[in-house]
């Protein structure tokens, strides 16, 4: 069993390496990527069914760090079993889907290898019982996200989005590293058990608070809490499977898992939890509002991810100590299933239509029954409709927060509870809006063409298989007005489904998990715990939100978001200028660096330069004194003798 834990981490990493080695033969690369994912699922099932409840599994041996012990252990328990299973399932479906989605991409093999490596990073975070290993997995994910988002590296927007994601998360990682160091120094060990068992001493423990707050900031970077949130919508420039991977079960959710692991410490530290609560509450409401106004399906889903991850973190911030981190992890699981489903469905739809702008997708789901059902299940689950998994996990999180608020959590928990209910209504509203748009047939096709050139449209053909030549659309589906001016089209088969059976099966598998995944969670203590009152209230909010959106859209005939003031909507689409703010911070840092350079060059370097000038002047004087005359040489000798003799006799001993 020990080897199972090690293999769960090692196998995807090896698969990534093997995939790179076999990049000349796509068939082998496909086999490696999908095959390894299947094996990892089997291993994860073993870990889920029979967790070992140990945290002393050696990985690569302890690091020799003097008096700081770093045993680099792995762990296996119920929590890690569930998350590992979910991660491996989602990765498997994504790998299968990718085989179809990027079948004509010349760099499919690199993409699949990166996905494998990404999975290895996430599984390392999941199985790690050591802060150092957690950090390694964390950074591997950060690096892989850069590769995945920038997969279409020939497009400027993709490159920019990749760098943006990398830089923003890395800046937050500075705090993460500082936080881990503070926690390790406090425990004199990086081992998770040691870190957790050093309980706070009497009074305030400044080092603990510093460490926990810094970890919150680091998590805020990767999970997209408010000042760091803007990288995630831009990350939609990556191919849809990459988006699904980043959003559903790995990078974004990793923060939840890390804080869940450290929960025993957070339970004792109100300051860090208050920071987390405020950030999560602001993020979940703000991004849900932004999601409502989006004009692009993928960006809408991205904002919904931010909102949902904030729900998990809010549950962690508000849950009482005895409830623990399980509700948050439970919502992580639920979110992983329905968000992966939504992204793959959106990718499927976009591949059929050729765009991801909502205007272009209007009514497109209606005549594709399987896809329509899948999207319906996903959106309903996101909105929190019973009996889908989203309902159970979200209401478990709400219940935990309410329990925390009524159980002495104070203002911190109440903020979260209020934000949670508001978010519930808003989520229902934007889900309803998206569904109505996808499902209602377009009244006049002509009107969409004007929207096609909408400047808000983000992804210009990025989700498409770009290597398809234009000669491929000789028959079948007529060009929609949208596709005009965009290189390449998506399908050669018109109304027929171009999707392969296996790829569609992967989507259906996710739909099934969204329907029945709750059963998986029953094995985890406290993972499904729906309070009657809170569930009723949240259902009311869901109904209210859905009804509001429905009525705003005039029974689906219009886009609900069109009721918003145009100016406000335009600002919301670009995230209220967060990107500009980031750029300002960047140029501020550059300006500061320039100032330092100037100071260094003109102030600090003045001294060395003065030394150089002095040396040159002294040398000139010396040259003048040295003429090739024996007399002056003798004079020097005589003076030298006198000086040396005097020194020698007077200073002797």
């Amino acid at each position, binding site marked *: 069993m020990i080897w199972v834990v090690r293999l769960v981490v090692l196998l995807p990493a090896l698969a990534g390496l093997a995939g790179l080695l076999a990049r000349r033969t796509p068939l082998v690369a496909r086999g490696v990527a999908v095959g390894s994912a299947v094996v990892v699922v089997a291993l994860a099932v073993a870990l889920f069914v029979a967790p070992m409840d140990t945290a002393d599994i050696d990985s690569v041996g302890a690091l020799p760090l003097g008096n700081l012990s770093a045993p680099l252990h792995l762990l296996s328990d119920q929590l890690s079993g569930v998350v590992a299973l979910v991660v491996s399932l989602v990765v498997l479906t994504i790998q299968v889907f990718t085989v179809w989605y990027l079948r004509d991409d010349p760099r499919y093999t690199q993409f699949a290898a990166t996905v494998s490596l990404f999975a290895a990073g996430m599984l390392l975070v999941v199985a790690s019982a050591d802060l150092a290993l957690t950090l390694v997995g964390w950074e591997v994910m950060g690096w892989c996200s850069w590769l995945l988002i920038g997969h279409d590296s020939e497009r400027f927007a993709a490159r920019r989005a990749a760098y943006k994601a990398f830089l923003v998360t890395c800046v937050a990682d500075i705090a993460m590293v500082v936080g881990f160091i503070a926690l390790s120094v406090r425990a004199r060990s990086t081992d998770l058990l040691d870190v957790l068992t050093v309980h706070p001493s009497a009074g305030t423990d400044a080092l603990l608070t510093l460490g926990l707050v810094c970890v919150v900031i680091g998590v805020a970077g990767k999970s997209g809490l408010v000042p760091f949130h803007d990288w995630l919508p831009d990350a939609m420039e990556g191919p849809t499977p990459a988006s699904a991977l980043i959003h559903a079960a790995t990078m974004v959710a990793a923060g939840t898992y890390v804080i869940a692991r450290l929960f025993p410490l957070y339970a004792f530290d109100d300051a860090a939890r208050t920071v987390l609560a405020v950030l999560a509450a602001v993020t979940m409401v703000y991004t849900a509002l932004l999601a409502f106004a989006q004009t692009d399906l993928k960006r809408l889903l991205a904002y919904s991810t931010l909102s949902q991850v904030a729900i998990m973190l809010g549950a962690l911030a508000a849950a009482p100590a005895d409830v623990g981190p399980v509700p948050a992890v439970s919502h992580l699981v639920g979110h992983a299933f329905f968000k992966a489903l939504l992204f793959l469905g959106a990718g499927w739809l976009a591949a059929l239509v050729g765009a991801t702008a909502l205007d272009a997708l209007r009514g497109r789901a209606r005549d594709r029954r399987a896809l329509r059902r899948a999207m319906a299940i996903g959106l309903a689950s996101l909105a929190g409709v019973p009996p889908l998994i989203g309902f159970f996990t979200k209401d478990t999180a709400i219940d935990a927060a309410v329990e925390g608020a009524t159980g002495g959590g104070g203002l911190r928990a109440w903020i979260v509870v209020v934000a949670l209910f508001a978010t519930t209504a808003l989520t229902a509203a934007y889900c309803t809006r998206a569904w109505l748009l996808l499902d209602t047939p377009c009244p006049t096709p002509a009107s969409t063409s004007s929207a096609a050139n909408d400047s808000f449209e983000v992804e210009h053909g990025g989700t498409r298989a770009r290597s398809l030549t234009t000669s491929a659309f000789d028959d079948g589906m007529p060009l929609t007005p949208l596709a005009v001016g965009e290189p390449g089209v998506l399908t050669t088969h018109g109304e027929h489904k171009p999707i392969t059976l296996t790829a569609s099966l992967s989507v259906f598998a996710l739909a099934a998990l969204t329907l029945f995944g709750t059963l998986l969670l029953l094995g985890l203590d406290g993972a499904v715990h729906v309070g009657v009152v809170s569930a009723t209230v949240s259902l009311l909010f869901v109904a209210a939100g859905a009804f509001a959106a429905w009525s705003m859209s005039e029974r689906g005939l219009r886009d609900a978001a069109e009721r918003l003031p145009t100016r406000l909507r335009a600002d919301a689409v670009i995230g209220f200028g967060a990107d500009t703010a980031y750029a300002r911070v960047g140029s501020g840092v550059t300006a500061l660096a320039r100032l330092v350079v100037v100071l260094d060059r003109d102030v600090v370097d003045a001294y060395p330069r003065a030394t150089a000038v002095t040396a040159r002047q002294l040398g000139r004087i010396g040259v003048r004194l040295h003429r090739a005359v024996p007399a002056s040489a*003798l004079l*020097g*000798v005589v003076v*030298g003798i006198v000086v040396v003799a005097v020194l020698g006799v007077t200073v002797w*001993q």
Partner: protein
Amino acid sequence: MNGLVIDVAALWPALFPLLGIVAVLVVDLVTPRLRQAPYAVAVVAAGFGAWTSLPGVLQEAGSSRSSFCVGQQGWFSSTSAPPHIAPTCFWQADSLASGLQLAASLAAVVCLLLAWPIARSRADAASGAPAPARSGHTREPVEAVLLLAALAGTVVLAASRDVGTWLVALELATLPVIVLVALAGRRRSIVGAVQLLVTSLVSFALLVLGAALWFAATGSPFLDPEAAGGAAGSPVALDSAGSAALLALSVVFVVAGIGFKLSLVPFHAWTPTAYSGATLSVATFLATVSKIGALAALLVFLRAVAVLGTPGFVAIAVLSALSMTVGNLMALRQNDVVLLLAWSTVAQAGWVVLPLVSVSALGTGASAAYLLTYVVATLVAFAVVALTVRDSGAVGRSLVGYEGLWRRHAWRAGALGLALTSLAGLPPGVIGLVGKIVALRPVVAQGWVWLTVIAAANAVLGVAVYLRWLRPVVTSVAEPAEAAEPVNEAAGSAVVAGRALSSPRVRQVRRGAVVAALVISAAVLLVVSVQPDLLLGVLR
């Protein structure tokens, strides 16, 4: 008085140069027209000298190869000496002395190769040039004999253990060099020789005075710790304090006298004049073999007084600091590479005596180690200069002549770069860096803070000095420089073309010796740079 025990095997390093002198004279008598023959013989003699000093280098620490031993403490005070004392020897070459002997012999080989004469045919072809006709055919054997004589003096100096041998060997090592400088025959070389001679006379007077004071203080002609420690046998009736003061004065005079040979400031004034006046090979000899001899002489004396356990010599510290600073400042202003190397010698001499402020085995070993790194690197630099001068004429003596050397002669530029970085103490010249650290260690250990600060500042200045030369080597030739050069080069290139046309083979031979010198010295520098333990281990 017991009989004198003579171990000839220990004497070979000195005997071979002397035999070489005889052989050179004989060969010259037999074939006076063969101009390379004296040098070939001299190279062989110096090479054998180096070979025979190897066993002395490899012997373990503490032992020494001795010769001319007498059974008792000395002739003069045999009645007062304890009877069981170990025999005293006039010739004692321990591993440190043997190491210096080996280095001197090898450096002499390189100098001889650099001095390899111009072939006769070339002299006929370019008879218009002023150089050859003056000294006729006698110049080569004289030069070879003088070089070998100076080498013999240096080798004896390292192993001498009594005042008489010490003084005679010192003169033997110095006087031939003065003649060699004068032999170049130019006006500047006469000036340099005169300056050298005058300074050397005064210094020798000082040395004799120092030796006399030593004898007065200790009553022993032997420069060994027993004599210095038991200063009781003094012929002059003195209390111990008076004897110590005499000893101190003698040490100071000896330091001053040898300071001339090491070109320590303020005894250095002859250095740039003599270097620029002499031929390149003689300048190389002055910069390497002469310095080895000077340090050997100083070490003989200082190891004898080390037993007194003095905290250190302020006089040496002052001389060292002055030399480094003045040498570097002056070198920074030179555009003539020989003058630059001359002032670099002054600065490096300061580094060589730096560790001697602490009178200890650590200090002497460090000093010798630093000297050897300096000698190897300087040999390489001079060999590159000699090669460049032979290629491009007088331009090779100025920094301008080295512009773009990297593109024209990559290997040569690489050797020069290694030599300069070694002198500056920067990687890839690792040995220079190691040498500087080794030299600073005793100073720091004894708490000479001000001296350490000055040394550190001079290390930085030194980097500037040598990088000033290295920069044109690695940068590409600037356009204006190329445009200006033909004016200077026209004569030189015409001569070069003439040479090449008249006798390409002879020219090849001429260069061959210089190239061999460069290859030998650069190989040694490379080996000790890669494996500094080889050099440091020799002197342990």
